[in-house]
């Protein structure tokens, strides 16, 4: 035996309420604080154009698909799997809406059901290869991404399909609440639902343990494969939902733009894991991160800064935030590292 007589540390007198730690609190709100600073900076530069509710309401609505996509990603990420295929699933979903609704005149309600079903199917295919054939999730979802991108190009003849049923457009951007189009609130519904599942249900605990310690989870009676399967199907369904919102926002189906969402969505997922509940992928953090990045890009665009700067901003913000977070936390194990 190798045990050494280590003294037992003294018990701090204390109850079971976690103590308020200022450092932790600052870390939790740091990104929100930087977001406000960013808004203030752009506001100072462009008081008229930037600092008006119309600008923000458009931003909130037009980034709703990206927000849902970021939320989709964090489900399998929490369970320990990467789903790179969400961007292509978004495109597939909006492409299907265009083809079935516009070209084949199918009723929009049925088309949406099909789109969601196809999203679930994509998740199942991913899960089949990842869980049952034990192929790394990164490889599988990279493959299905390319596969779906090809299918969409075939399906749409690589053309943008306009003229999607006005009912969908109206439902997504037709109405406003507090001046913000409905699209934003759909994203909010997803956040609240995910927040509930992650933090207030046994399922959320299972998801977390499956991601952090598969063997621990298995030996504690958790059906690890079922949880991973469910997480991948959920991300497929949510990515499809993001595609529906995207089709509604645009009023058309664009066979190419989905992939442009992928990297920002991943950036937001990881950036979000540095805030609200630092160290964990968490829905509110992801939302804050999406709109933080959106604010930066919107502001920069309005300043007339060339397009390439937005990519630099996305990537730079991600690396910087995650690095700062990792340094302040002394390299302890988190979802990010």
């Amino acid at each position, binding site marked *: 035996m*190798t045990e050494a007589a*280590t003294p037992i540390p003294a018990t701090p007198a204390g109850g079971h309420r976690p103590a308020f730690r200022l450092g932790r609190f600052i870390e939790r709100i740091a990104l929100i604080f930087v977001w406000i600073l960013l808004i203030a900076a752009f506001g100072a530069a462009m008081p008229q154009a930037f600092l008006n509710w119309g600008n923000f309401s458009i931003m909130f609505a037009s980034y709703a698909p990206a927000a849902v996509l970021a939320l989709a990603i964090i489900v399998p990420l929490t369970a320990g799997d990467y789903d790179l295929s969400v961007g292509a699933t978004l495109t597939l979903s909006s492409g299907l809406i265009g083809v079935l609704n516009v070209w084949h005149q199918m009723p929009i309600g049925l088309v949406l059901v099909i789109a969601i079903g196809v999203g679930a199917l994509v998740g199942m295919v991913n899960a089949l290869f990842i869980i049952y054939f034990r192929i790394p999730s990164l490889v599988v979802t990279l493959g299905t991404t390319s596969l779906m991108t090809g299918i969409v190009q075939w399906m749409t003849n690589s053309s943008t399909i306009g003229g999607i049923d006005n009912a969908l457009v109206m439902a997504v951007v037709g109405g406003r609440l507090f001046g913000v189009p409905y699209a934003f609130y759909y994203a909010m519904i997803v956040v609240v639902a995910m927040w509930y599942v992650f933090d207030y249900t046994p399922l959320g605990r299972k998801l977390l343990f499956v991601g952090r310690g598969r063997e*621990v989870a298995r030996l504690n009676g958790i059906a690890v494969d079922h949880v991973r399967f469910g997480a991948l199907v959920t991300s497929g369904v949510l990515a499809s939902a993001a595609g529906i919102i995207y089709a509604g926002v645009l009023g058309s189906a664009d066979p190419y733009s989905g992939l442009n969402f992928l990297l920002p969505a991943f950036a937001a997922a990881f950036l979000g894991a540095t805030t609200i509940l630092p160290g964990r992928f968490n829905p509110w953090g992801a939302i804050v991160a999406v709109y933080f990045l959106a604010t930066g890009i919107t502001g920069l665009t309005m300043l007339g800064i060339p397009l390439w700067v937005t990519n630099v901003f996305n990537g730079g913000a991600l690396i910087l935030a995650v690095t700062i977070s990792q340094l302040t936390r002394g390299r302890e194990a988190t979802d990010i590292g």
Partner: protein
Amino acid sequence: MALPVLKLDGIAKTFGGARALAGVSFSVAPGEVHGLLGKNGSGKSTLVKILAGFHAPDPGGRLDFNGEAVDLPLKPGDFRRLGMSFVHQNLGLVPSLTVLENLRFAHLTTAKSGFIDWRRERATAREALDRFGLSIDTEERIDRLSPVERALLAIVRAFEEIRVACAATGRPGLVLLDEPTPFLPREGVEKLFGLVRSIAATGSSVIFISHDIDEVMTITDRITVLRDGQLAGSLVTRAATHEQVVEAIVGRRIARLGVTSHTGPQLSRPAFARIAAAAGTTLEPSDITIGKGEILGVTGLIGSGYEELPYLVFGARPCRSGSIAFDGAEPIALSAMTPKRAIDLDLALLPGDRQGASGVDSLPIVDNMFLPDVARFFRGGRLSRGAMLREAFDLGTRYEVRPNDPSLKLSALSGGNAQKVLIARWMNRKPRLLLLDEPTQGVDVGTRVQIFAALKAAAASGMSVLCASSDAEQLAEICDRVLIFARGRILTEITGADLTKDGIAEACYASIDLAGHVGTASPSVHAS
């Protein structure tokens, strides 16, 4: 005698206040196969680590290699320059790379020229394998090799490492084999011995470390035995008997155990679980009965199969056969057992690998504590965090977890306190059968006492315990009965007055001899 390859003189090592090695001296002659024996904690591994340069010995000792004094402490990697190499039990091969890449690893990663001549590397590797008549394909991946081929390859690689150094100095080298055999089948061990003899025939020496006395007596020329950090015996193998070796290892003469003692379990209490024909990777079909409220220990030398039992019963590892019946109910096939089902049957398993299989360090104590039964805190549509924290705090108080703040991450606790949390997790569920694997490994002395007390109290109230452990002291302290395994079978049962630390250790060593008899007795009637 020729100039010894390795000569140790008064090598000592103290950790804190504990003496791990108290001035050990012995020498290894050129071309000699030298056995190094001793119980766990006898100082063998400390000695190996000093030679490998992981530990600095206490000042005052002397180490000569081929007659030249070596500066102590050795730095990691120094051994290679001297002409010494090691094969550890895990062999140090990369499973996903080829035989060639593994064999030439050191050369390929340190070569001065930026270009790798694969044709020449392949020829060199082929030559190294052919030298010992091994027909292993150089392009085969390590994970496609049999365990024996892997062990042989690791030894060939170790010899290749010293061959270069030896060619430069013109002097013999030394290969140190640290428990290379416990997971090999019999015929594999024979092949390995053939290789060891070939190496010795080149004039280099081999140090062979093993728990298996029969193996050591078969292959070695001389044997050095360590006990409690001191030299306990120096024997010429040809002239030594099995009893003398065992005596040197355990420190006193022991009576051979009667073969009749494994006729069946002697239960003094009603049976709770009957395990029938349980077999795993190394465990051969074994029948075990665990009494209600009994703490049953299973042990043996490393690789003897006992360590699989808790996992097989819990459905955590694939079994070859077996069933288990609780309280006289219908038997359940072990192949149909899953951790989920085991938990539903009120079984609990505390794995030996605390960080990899038992708890998640990066998540809070409270979540670790209630992992199997978090659902019971789901009330009125939400998980009651407050109730979880309150109960976790109460449990932490009962099991003396320090610091007792359940919102901390598990990593904030010492090894012993983390183990208390994980024991509390299972005990709180009041299991009918608790399965343990090395429950106090890496746990401080104070915690050990607390864990023992908790186990005994729970057993007194009717919980049955199956404890797999290599720690004889621990088994002697908590168990009502201990089963000794060797080569996958139960050989002896120890109860009553024999159930002491020394009694268990002796039985483990004696069992090797019995296993030899059991293995060869049945088929041939005309044996002399």
